[in-house]
C-alpha cells in the first residue's frame, strides 16, 4: 500500500531477481509468476514512463536539430499572419509579429535546455564535490560546508536565483549559473549522506587496512559507490531547473526579447492573453510536459525518495 506509487520501475529488476526465483523453486511452473511481475514489458506495464522518456527524447531532439522539426524561421516577422490562431500549417498559431509560435518553441528548446544542462552540471559537479569532501573528511570541514548548505537552503530557490542574477547581471548564461548555484545544496546533502553510509561499509575498511591511500579510497571506492542516488537526483533537478529558468525568463531576467526562450515566449503572450491565448498557452504546455516527463523519470529512478 505504501509503496504502490513508487514500486513500479526502479524496484522492478531487483524484485524479479529476488522475487521470481524463490517462487520458481517453490514448485510452481515458470510462466505464471513471470507474467504476474511483467518486468519484460515495461512499455506495456508503464505507459506513463514510456511516454515520459519519449517526451524528453523529443525535447532533446528539438534542442539538437531544431531545423528538422520546422522549416520556418523563428525570428522573421510575417505581416500577413499576425495573431493567427492555431491551424494545420501553424499548429501553435502566430504571435503579434506573425512569427510561428511552434517554430519559436522548437528553437526555444535550444536556449532553455542548454541553459538547463549548464545549470544541472554546475549543481551536480559542485554539489557532489562538496558532499564528497564533507562526508569523507568530516570534522570542521564538514561542519563548515554543511552550514553553508544550510544557508543556501534557507533562501528558497527562485529568490536565491534572483539574488545571484542581480549580482551577476541578466542573460541566459548568468541565469543558468544562478540556478545551478542555488541547487548545489540539494546535491551536496544527498551526496554527503550517501558518502557517510558508504564509508561505513566493510570494503572501505578493508581497503584502508591493506594500506590504500585515503585519496585512492575516496576516488576508487567511495565515489563510485555513492554516485547512484546523486545520479537519480539529476532528472528531478532537470525538471525544476527548467521551471526556474523559464520563470526567470518570464520575469525578463533571462534571454533578451527577440530570442525564443520558453519563459519569454509565455511572457510575450501575456498582454494579448484575452484575444490570443495560444501564444502563451502552447509554449507553456510544452514546458509543463517536459518538466512532468523528467519528474516522472526521476520518480522511476528513486523509489524511496519521492519528494
Amino acid at each position, binding site marked *: 500500500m505504501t509503496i504502490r*506509487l513508487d514500486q513500479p520501475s526502479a524496484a522492478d529488476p531487483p524484485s524479479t531477481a529476488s522475487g521470481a526465483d524463490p517462487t520458481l523453486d517453490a514448485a510452481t511452473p515458470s510462466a505464471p509468476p513471470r507474467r504476474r511481475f511483467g518486468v519484460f514489458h515495461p512499455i506495456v506495464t508503464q505507459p506513463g514512463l514510456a511516454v515520459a522518456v519519449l517526451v524528453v527524447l523529443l525535447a532533446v531532439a528539438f534542442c539538437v536539430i531544431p531545423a528538422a522539426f520546422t522549416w520556418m524561421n523563428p525570428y522573421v516577422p510575417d505581416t500577413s499572419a499576425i495573431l493567427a490562431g492555431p491551424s494545420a500549417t501553424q499548429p501553435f498559431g502566430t504571435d503579434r509579429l506573425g512569427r510561428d509560435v511552434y517554430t519559436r518553441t522548437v528553437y526555444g528548446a535550444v536556449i532553455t535546455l542548454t541553459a538547463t544542462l549548464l545549470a544541472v552540471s554546475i549543481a551536480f559537479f559542485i554539489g557532489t564535490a562538496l558532499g564528497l569532501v564533507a562526508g569523507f573528511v568530516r570534522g570542521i570541514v564538514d561542519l563548515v560546508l554543511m552550514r553553508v548548505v544550510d*544557508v543556501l537552503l534557507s533562501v528558497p530557490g527562485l529568490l536565491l536565483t534572483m539574488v545571484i542574477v542581480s*549580482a551577476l547581471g541578466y542573460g541566459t548564461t548568468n541565469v543558468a549559473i544562478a540556478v545551478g548555484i542555488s541547487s548545489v545544496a540539494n546535491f551536496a546533502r544527498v551526496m554527503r549522506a550517501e558518502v557517510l553510509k558508504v564509508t561505513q561499509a566493510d570494503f572501505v575498511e578493508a581497503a584502508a587496512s591493506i594500506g590504500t591511500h585515503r585519496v585512492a579510497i575516496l576516488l576508487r571506492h567511495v565515489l563510485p559507490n555513492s554516485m547512484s542516488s546523486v545520479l537519480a537526483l539529476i532528472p528531478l533537478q532537470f525538471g525544476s531547473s527548467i521551471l526556474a529558468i523559464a520563470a526567470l525568463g518570464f520575469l525578463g531576467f533571462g534571454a533578451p526579447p527577440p530570442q525564443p526562450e520558453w519563459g519569454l515566449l509565455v511572457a510575450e503572450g501575456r498582454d494579448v492573453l484575452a484575444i490570443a491565448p495560444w501564444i502563451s498557452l502552447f509554449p507553456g504546455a510544452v514546458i509543463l510536459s517536459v518538466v512532468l516527463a523528467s519528474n516522472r523519470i526521476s520518480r522511476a529512478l528513486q523509489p524511496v525518495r519521492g519528494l
Partner: protein
Amino acid sequence: MLTYALLKLGRALIVVWGAFTASFILLYLMPASPIELLFPPNERASIDPQAFKEMERAYGFDRPTWEQYLDRLLAGLHGDFGTSVGTGKPVIEAIGEALPNTVILAAAALVLASLFALSVAWVATYLESAWLRNLISSVPPLLVSFPSFLLGLIIIKIFSFQLGWFPPISGDGLRGLVLPAAALAIPVSGPIAQLLLRNFQTEYSSPYVLTSYSKGLRKGQVLNTEVLRNASLPALTQGGIIVGELLAGAVITETIFSRAGIGRLTEEAVRAQDVPVVQGIVMLVAVCFVTVNFIVDVSYPLVDPRLKAIPKGVTA
C-alpha cells in the same frame, strides 16, 4: 529540553549570519563596481569621476573590505540595510510597506493549499477503486511540475477574461485576493500533498488502523479520527520550506496580478539591481525561514509527545 532549544537557536543564528555574509559577498563584493549599482541604471553612463570618488568615500567603499563588512553587519543588526537606490527610501521602510499585502496573500494561499493538499491525500486514501486512487495520486506530481507563471495566466484567462468573475489586476479587498491566492496556493500545495499522501498511506497501513476497524469504525471515521492526525503532524516539519515557497511564489504571483507586496518589490529591486533592497529581502526571507523552523523544532515535541523522549536522550 532547554539545551535542545538553545542548540537549535544557535544553529538558527548561524544560518542568519551566514545569509548576511553570503549576501554581502554576493551583492557588495562580486559586482565590479558596487558604486555603479548604487546609481539608477540610466544615469550610470554619465557618472562624473569626481562624484564617483566622493560617492565611494561617502559609502565607505574605499575602506578595507572587513571594515565595510563589520559596518554593514552592525547596521544590519539594528535593522538598517541602507536606502533603496531607486526610491531613496530606507530599505526597512520599503519592506515594511510591502509586507502586510504579502502576509495576507500568503496566509490566504497557505489555508487554501493546506485544505487542498489534505483533501487530495484524504480522498486518495479513502477511495476503494484503485483506478480512481491512482488518478488522484497523480495530482500532486502534476502540481509540482506546473509552471506557476503559466498557472497564473490560465487562471486570469478563465476567471477574468472568459467568466468575468474577478478582476485580472488584483485590487484591494477580498475580490482581488481570490485569484492571486489560488494561483499561489496551487503550486505550494503540490509538495505538501505529496508528503501528506505518503504519510496517509504509511499510516493507513499501520496496525492500529486494523484495530480501529475491528472495533467497528468505518473507513471515514478511521481516517478522520486516527490517520489524519498522525499523518498531518509531520507536515509541520516542512513549515520553513513552505513559508519560503510562499514568499518565492509571491514574486511570480504578484507580478502577474500586478499586486503590491514583497514579491513585486523583489522583482523591481532585481530589475533595477537595487542591491540594498535585495539584501534586505534576503535577510527577511532567511529570518522567516529560520524562525518558522525554530518554532517547529521547539514546539514539535510538545505537539507530538512521542518525540519528547528522543531529543532529551540525544542532546543530554
